């Protein structure tokens, strides 16, 4: 079975992990138009090559980022999400 090097749990079988989609920068939910939001939700480069993706180790509910080649299925690098995301996103309530 394919082995994923999990930043938290070390090398584990890929069947213990769930794929969570490409890492894409979220437009500001408070100012973006609905078209921009639709692009963010639905549309994708879907490239053939190395892609930055969200993965989750299901047993420990640990989300992290993997750089994976979508042609050779080789996992180039895995690292904690905190390498990319340093700040908390605040969703404002509409009433505010």
């Amino acid at each position, binding site marked *: *079975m*394919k082995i994923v090097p999990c930043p938290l749990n070390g090398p584990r079988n890929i*069947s213990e992990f*769930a*794929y969570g989609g490409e890492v894409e920068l979220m437009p500001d939910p408070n100012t973006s138009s*609905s*078209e921009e939001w*639709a*692009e963010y*939700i*639905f*549309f*994708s*480069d*879907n*490239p*053939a090559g190395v892609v930055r*993706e969200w993965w989750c180790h299901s047993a420990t509910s640990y989300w992290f980022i993997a750089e994976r080649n*979508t*042609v*050779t*299925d080789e996992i180039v690098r895995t690292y904690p999400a905190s390498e990319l995301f340093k700040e908390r996103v605040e969703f404002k309530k509409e009433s505010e």
Partner: protein
Amino acid sequence: MPFGLLKYGLSKTYPAKHHFTPRKDLKKHYDVVIIGGGGHGAAIAYYLAKYHGITDIAILEKGYLGGGNTGRNTAVLRANYLTEEGVTFYRESLKLYRDLSNEFDYNIMWENRGQLTLATTDAAIGSFRWRAEVNKHLGVQSELIGRDEIRELVPLLNLGDGGRYPILGGLWHADGGTARHDAVVWGYAKGACERGVELHQLTEVTGLDVEHGRIKAVLTNRGTVQCGCAVQAVAGTSSLLAAMAGFKLPIHTYPLQAMVTQPYKPILDPLVSAPHVHVYIQQTSRGEFVIGGGSDPYPLYNTRSTLEMKESLCSAIQELFPFIGQMRLLRQWAGITDMTPDYSPIMGLSPVENYYLDAGWGTWGFKATPISGKTMAELIATGRVPDLIKPFGVDRFLRFEQVNEAGATAASH
């Protein structure tokens, strides 16, 4: 006797028929360039030539005719979808399939076997009742049936009494069937080439020349071709071609693995699908059992196989038909599926004015081959989007008007 046959085969009195364009140089310009020589590409060319008198067409295929996902699907033909848009579209496709052999004068081996989807939960029964009513309303034969009727249709099926998945009922789709997938693309390509269309195999598109929102030329490994308009029908690499044209699509690309056993005597007539264990099966007219399931758990542009997926298919199919455990697998393969967020295709206009989309064919492309060809040809010839494919435009996602068919797949993904 063998010598007689050989003599007949080599005799000049009965020359072999050549159905497709012999290899020749690309012209400098074509009215229509079709990228992708699979079932859809060939069907678009065929209907353009047959109904619209457009024959200055080149089909560009990077490999060989029908060598992509046309030759990798599991040949399930059905129209028992959930939405009005989906059911109407696939219903028209099935109607065309019924007459194709006569129309081509070439046997596509269409067989009206019926298709059965199994339910093991009350929720599934509820959704089948809904699908059956939508289908009947739109003239498609679907009905909810019970265990006794299932036993009559498929006597060898394990109904799961006392087991993990007791079968409660099923959705019986009498219109369903199968056809030989290679023959479908060959038939379309033959009909197109006879009318003057050029098929260019081993011709890979390497770039698209788009200026001021219009496509001017298609760049290939055999030179540049100017074009009046172009259409992409490249299931499995839709996003990559769209990127050449300069836009994104709502697609993620996954492999779908399938396998087939050695041939056995005919014992299974309908096509049977079991969403609860993610598997479906049919016995081909050659006697082989074709077994397929859901797409892989994560995206990949690769037709490699995994033991996990094969294990899951094997255990699931033995749950339904325990005797299959005694059979031997003949071969296994994978296709590449362009999955859309709502499990419906992406057809019609694109952000580039004279560049048309026939994409997002996920796991439902083969059954839609005839109607996609017919409607796309109408669009290219008239410039108007036919009503049947209006709901499938790529811009539906910008308006949040998805056509949700996720519940009507043969093996939920």
